[in-house]
């Protein structure tokens, strides 16, 4: 069994999202760059373990570009100068913190929000129905790969195929009450799953607690 399969079997999407939400403050209030980097790496690792795609370049470019743009607004002690540009400690710190926050939150979302999450109420049902059609579109898209159709025709054929009788085009009897596959995929959480979620929170809040120790001062220290 892969780690991804274990996570899907033992932790329900609701517990995943709750753990993610509970971890957000520990990440947002983290003011030590190194500890914040550790949390970001943890979120990235988790999303990789869950089988999510990971390309290292986009997050690195994102952090670098945000840091670079922040450097144009000098704050505090000058570290060195590049021509007329003064690289300051405060601007570098703020840029890194903002970049890490942006990237970390993306990967925290990726690791804690699953597509089989069922949202409550009428709106949740529509979301479920949307994911049902999304699955059908993906399925039909793969099937039409061999057919010699233009992109426009391919999309049109696909929409004609997935639209049920009595659905949006209003032909035939309605099948719109059919249940979405997403509706039946909600699973419970095992004791090991609860323990893992608690461990995840403990690590994150522990890293925030560390930032209050003199060894990990606010900033780049």
């Amino acid at each position: 069994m892969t780690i991804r399969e274990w996570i899907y079997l033992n932790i329900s999407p609701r517990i995943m999202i709750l753990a993610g939400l509970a971890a957000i403050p520990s990440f947002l209030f983290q003011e030590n760059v190194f500890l914040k980097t550790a949390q970001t790496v943890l979120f990235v690792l988790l999303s990789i373990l869950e089988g999510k795609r990971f390309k290292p370049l986009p997050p690195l470019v994102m952090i670098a570009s945000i840091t670079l743009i922040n450097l144009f607004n000098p704050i505090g002690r000058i570290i060195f100068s590049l021509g007329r540009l003064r690289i300051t400690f405060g601007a570098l710190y703020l840029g890194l913190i903002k970049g890490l926050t942006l990237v970390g939150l993306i990967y925290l979302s990726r690791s804690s929000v699953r597509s089989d999450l069922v949202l409550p109420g009428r709106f949740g049902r529509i979301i479920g129905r949307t994911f049902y059609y999304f699955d059908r579109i993906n399925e039909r898209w793969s099937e039409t790969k061999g057919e010699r159709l233009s992109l426009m025709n391919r999309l049109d054929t696909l929409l004609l195929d997935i639209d049920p009788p009595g659905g949006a085009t209003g032909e035939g009897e309605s099948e719109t009450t059919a249940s979405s596959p997403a509706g039946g995929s909600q699973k419970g959480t095992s004791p090991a799953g609860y323990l893992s979620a608690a461990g995840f929170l403990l690590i994150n809040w522990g890293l925030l607690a560390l930032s209050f120790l003199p060894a990990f001062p606010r900033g780049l220290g």
Partner: protein
Amino acid sequence: MRAPTDRTRRYLELVAIFGAFALFLSTIEYLIPKPLPSIRIGLANLPILVSLSVLPVPYIILLTGIKIIGQGLINGTMFSYIFLFSFAGSLASTGVMILLHRLVRKRITLIGISVLGALASNAVQLFLARLIIIGEGALLIAPPFLSVGLGTSIILGMFAVRFTSVSRWYRKLLDAEARI
């Protein structure tokens, strides 16, 4: 004639199909390599553009909400600033597109609606970027950001015009709308 409940159900079904179409296009967009992560083509706006003539306003807003939440779930950006940017940009864009379509639809094509919608979205996102992430530096990224938005929205608008004129599925939707 269909009962109002059937009509509502039909619109909801259409919202789900357009929503799924938007999610599919945003997945395709995610796979397209871009020079900078913040640059987006906005493919997922195509279903909203196409829906302007076949859905009442509340359902178009519902579709926008589904697009935003669905994208957050699929791309996993729900807790991030990107979700906030997507939320604000999409609402601004949809609002402008609905207004233009309802007020001056005879004097504007889907290309014009697409361009003005994209500019509204980009303006709101730049404002948020200035406010939250990069401060005054937002002015530095504004020219390339707006230029890309302009270019992609023109292409998207042209695609929407072509799609609404040749699509058999869209024709069926219009026929069904005329019947009720």
